[in-house]
């Protein structure tokens, strides 16, 4: 017999979790899109972006293309993964502070 009854969820709960996760995904995708699109926009519209010198004689655009974007992708990826995981945990699991589920309780114990 399957004792892991705590892992069962109603369709409404799963549906709500899916829609919240979808909202997170769309939100982060928009952030990703804006950040990536900002690079060519800045290159076309701002001389400062490609002509100024920041560190080691490199322009802000070069620095962003060489390092910044990769750092941004990494941070964004970690952030979205953590957020998704936290949302799923909070929406489907028992998040009470005692972390105690009735399914784990030995028979005969009072709450």
């Amino acid at each position: 017999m399957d004792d892991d009854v705590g892992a069962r969820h109603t369709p409404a709960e799963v549906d709500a979790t899916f829609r919240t996760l979808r909202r997170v995904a769309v939100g982060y995708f928009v952030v990703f899109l804006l950040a990536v699109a900002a690079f060519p926009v800045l290159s076309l519209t701002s001389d400062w972006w490609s002509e100024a010198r920041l560190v080691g004689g490199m322009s802000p655009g070069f620095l962003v293309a060489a390092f910044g974007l990769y750092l941004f992708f990494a941070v964004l990826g970690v952030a979205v993964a953590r957020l998704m995981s936290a949302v799923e945990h909070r929406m489907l699991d028992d998040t009470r502070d005692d972390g105690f589920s009735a399914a784990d309780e030995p028979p005969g114990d009072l709450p």
Partner: protein
Amino acid sequence: MRGGSRLLAGVLVAAWAAVYLVTQVLVAPPLGVLPTLASGLVVSTVVVLGYPSALRGPRGGSLGGPAGRSWRPARRPQDPRGVRDGLTIAAAGRSMPLRNGLTPDAARRTAQLIRPLLGGDAIAITDTEQVLAFVGPGSDHHHVGGTLQTRVSRLALGKKRTVVVHARDGIGCPEPGCPLRTAVVAPLAVADRVVGTLKVYRVHDEPAPRVLVDDMASMLSLHLELAEMDRERHLASDAKLDALRAQINPHFLFNILNTIASKSRTDPEESRELLLRLSDFFRYAVRQDGHFAEFSQEYFFVRTYVSLEQARFGDRLRVRYDLDPQVLTSRVPVLVIQPIVENAVKHGIADSVTGGTVHLRARVDPLTRTTSIRVSDDGAGMAPEVLDRLLAGQRPGDTDPRHSGVGLWNISQRLDSLFGDRYSFDVASTPGKGTTVDLRIPLR
């Protein structure tokens, strides 16, 4: 400013500093003013919108502990010397430690604070039994925690009025080498009840001004009265929460147990699951001992309740949750959402033959720092007179127990005591079309 707001302000300042460094200091030529401001605004917007996210993770000590008391007025920081330069009576009144009750620690800090104001060499504060604080000459034998030694204290407590002593003998201290010569002893009272004394001693023959000591004793008495009122207010708030806990409808338990009994032969697995959910439901209701909980915990309570009701109503009860990810970590008053959902099921869906849908929607507005929660149903709705009584704050149970609404009334009272006027709680209903309850509370 609360901790969260302070952190957000700090992050914003750091973001602007980083923008300034990158666009103005480390780069040649610096970026123009308008593009710099635009960059700063973009970064600020991202920070403000991204701050209240689930990335903050679980917070420590959420239930019952410090968070449960966090809404109480914060204590003001105390100067370790007890005295600040240029301290006025008004300033002392505002920062009076006795506002938290007549305790030894509060009495000691109060004595240190008011000693320079009253012109006394030694100050003592007592309750009716013992010395709570003694500051100044004579503290070697007027021990804190000891019983009242001086005759003059017992006289002031007995007569319930201020006593002035002009000679050493009048003080009645049993210690022969006591340096104290004059005393003014004023009773501290809460309503008509004397709860202690304020004693101002001098080591020379001129006693402290009686009017000044009287006024200070009156002020301290007022603070003690306020402390008493605070305590009563907290007790009332706790009692309201207890009432809500105790209000779990016996019919709900009866119906669920019947449902479980009927399924136990045909579907023992589901029966077992329902029993575990019922156990979770009662455990949550009983174990909540603070006033606030993370939204995700309240959500757990709501979906446990709804899943139990769905076992009874079957397809007639449909539910739709619509939650912002940011709202999951916000803190909301405990046992507020579930009674609203229960009302929607009991009065909206249960009476409808075709059933209906309960919609729970929760959002966080990071700009106004508000959490908004909406529970709506497309069920039977409420008659205008029932709604009017509810909105007027009247307990409608007197006339129609079925639409008692005591849960809503209780919630409204608790929100009043937790948030004052910084919340909104609106109920709108159309007979035959359903009811919508809107709750907006400050983001915590």
